[in-house]
């Protein structure tokens, strides 16, 4: 989408912001680390010379693997050029109940539903909760969330936490399954998510978590959420430049502490709708800005935390399908490395696993297109064309049999039957089929269990966490 010249201009713009404007770094220890590394620290304000940023970029890997907790290679995530992965997002306060279909506060059992369904969906690669648990102690929502999801999916989880304590809770559970800290460092089985503030602030919480990840070699995402026209410039190039600067502050700290730490550049970039006053999750600018952000990340040699499959709609309707599918498709085209928020509705206020289930179909569809056309002697099929000749047919050809499963994508939810059969099967709509598939997964899917020692670790971690918040 962007030319090399444009990317170079964006890249130079980010370096300029970091060197001449700098960011407010609210974390004392982080300022110390940065100063020692060669940054200019003036009170809370930290400016980073370009060479330091380039050093950090050189140290960060472009390709690495996040491993499935159960050793199932199909669920490993290989980050690298040309590979787009998809999963839900974190922390909306509400959830669409899969039985009543009503919007209500997110509860602990919803984490179990989200993890189980994500584990079963063929095109969902990683798991996030789609909510903040409301029926446990306020400070333990993230700890309970991870403890609840981890046994229900072997796909890597992208975890979030309020701060250091619950980051540690999560890590204890993950390393119990991995077989200890050393084993985890060789085969990390989850990713942690940190969110700095726009414009240009690295908060204490975000950096506490980042430093924790660097110390324990947890692959990390450092992702601001700027609003074009509100907390960032209104122009696409402007918001990309600012968001990259915000994310790369985290990059410099992380790579200084732990060279080679797997790091995802982040930024959920969208518009502040100037009429509805919301962060629009279904805006075309989101897809456009995220594609530009992805190209900048790849230009700089980093994987990106992408966004797609989300909507501003309040329900599972045509708007949800349209906005979600188009952003998923654009995200797949841009090759953003981990595309999250698949299942966000109502502008990020409500998580809906039904939206995720519908988007699983859109991702499969998009992936068939991005897989492209293979041109080889075998696929050219001139011999087959010759053999069949005029007036023949290909239904019985070995060539057809050899390729029909891989050349075509087969839908799970989109209906292609003729009218009579569709009518016989109950004249269902997409919405009906999404709900039915979700219920079917919940009734039948059995995720790989966690190890007994991990079960014990979860019990111990949650008991200790409850003690901690009593004080």
């Amino acid at each position, binding site marked *: 989408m962007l030319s090399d010249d444009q990317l170079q201009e964006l890249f130079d713009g980010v370096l300029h912001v970091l060197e001449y404007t700098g960011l407010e770094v609210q974390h004392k220890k982080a300022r110390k680390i940065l100063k020692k590394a060669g940054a200019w620290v003036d009170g809370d304000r930290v400016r980073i010379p370009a060479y330091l940023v380039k050093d950090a970029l050189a140290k960060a890997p472009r390709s690495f693997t996040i491993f499935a907790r159960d050793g199932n290679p199909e669920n490993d995530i290989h980050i690298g050029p040309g590979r787009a992965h998809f999963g839900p997002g974190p922390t909306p306060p509400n959830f669409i109940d899969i039985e009543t279909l009503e919007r209500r506060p997110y509860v602990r059992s919803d984490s179990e539903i989200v993890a189980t369904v994500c584990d079963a969906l063929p095109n969902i690669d990683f798991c996030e909760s789609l909510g903040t648990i409301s029926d446990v102690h306020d400070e333990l929502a993230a700890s309970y969330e991870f403890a609840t999801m981890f046994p229900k999916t072997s796909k890597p989880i992208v975890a979030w936490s309020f701060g250091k304590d619950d980051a540690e809770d999560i890590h204890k559970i993950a390393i119990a399954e991995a077989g200890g800290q050393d084993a985890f460092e060789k085969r990390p089985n989850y990713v942690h998510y940190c969110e700095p503030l726009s414009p240009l602030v690295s908060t204490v919480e975000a950096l506490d978590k980042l430093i924790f990840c660097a110390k324990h070699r947890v692959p990390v995402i450092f992702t601001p959420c700027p609003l074009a026209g509100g907390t960032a410039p209104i122009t696409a190039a402007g918001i990309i430049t600012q968001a990259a600067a915000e994310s790369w502050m985290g990059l410099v700290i992380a790579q200084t502490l732990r060279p080679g730490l797997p790091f995802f550049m982040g930024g959920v970039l969208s518009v502040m709708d100037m009429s509805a006053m919301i962060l629009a999750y279904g805006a075309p600018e989101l897809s456009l800005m995220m594609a530009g952000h992805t190209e900048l990340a790849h230009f700089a040699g980093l994987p990106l935390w992408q966004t797609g499959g989300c909507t501003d709609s309040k329900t599972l309707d045509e708007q949800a399908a349209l906005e979600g599918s188009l952003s998923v498709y654009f995200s797949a085209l841009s090759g953003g490395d981990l595309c999250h928020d698949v299942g966000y509705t109502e502008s990020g206020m409500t998580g809906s696993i039904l939206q995720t289930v519908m988007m699983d179909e859109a991702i499969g569809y998009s992936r068939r297109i991005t897989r492209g056309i293979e041109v080889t002697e075998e696929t050219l099929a001139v011999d087959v064309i010759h053999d069949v000749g005029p007036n023949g*047919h290909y*239904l*019985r050809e070995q060539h*057809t*049999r050899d390729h*029909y*499963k891989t050349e075509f994508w*087969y839908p799970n939810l989109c209906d292609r039957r*003729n*009218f*009579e*059969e569709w009518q016989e099967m109950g004249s269902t709509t997409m919405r009906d089929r999404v709900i039915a598939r979700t219920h079917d997964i919940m009734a039948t899917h059995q995720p790989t269990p966690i190890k007994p020692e991990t079960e014990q670790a979860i019990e111990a971690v949650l008991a200790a966490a409850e003690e901690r918040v009593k004080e």
Partner: protein
Amino acid sequence: MSEILSELATAVIEGNSDDAIDLTEDALDDGLEPQNILDNGLMPGMDHVGVEFRAGNMFVPEVLRSARAMQSAMDVLKPLLVEGGVEMAGKILLGTVKGDMHDIGKNLVGMMCEGAGFEVKDMGKNIAPEDFVTAVKEFNPDIVGMSALLTTTMRSMGHTIKALQEAGLRDQVKVMIGGAPVTQSFADKIGADGYASNAASAVDLAKQFAGV
């Protein structure tokens, strides 16, 4: 069901023609009746294929492979069945009607009917009413199947039925029709005995006509 018949059903399901022939011959050597082999080996295999196809677990190339395995075994059994005076599932005469050159759907119907045990004579495409009449006289089918893709050529189905009536052959055959623009009400209007909206339903319809 004996083990060999169960293996035969599996050979049909997996579309393995060589195994289907070998197992049929072995079953005959073991003294099993041809009718027993057909009813309890081959047919359960094809029935399973039909169920799996409808459920979306098997696809057209696999169904055709199974149909071919079924036919290969039938080539062994058929002379013995005829010799024993056993009624076959039935004979089907197929063709795309006059003016229409589209035959992929009709081909599919033919292959799937063969897989269900029918003897199929496929006349090809652009078949005029009088050619259908001649073929009915020669082949003596139980069922005549016609297809058309174009709204402009589907009228020829009515002309063919009329030609069969005029030749005094209408009562000795069941006529079934299909093709993208064809509907049940069109079938009723031109006096066809049945309509099927896809190849799998066409097989069901043919079975219904043949009473199997």
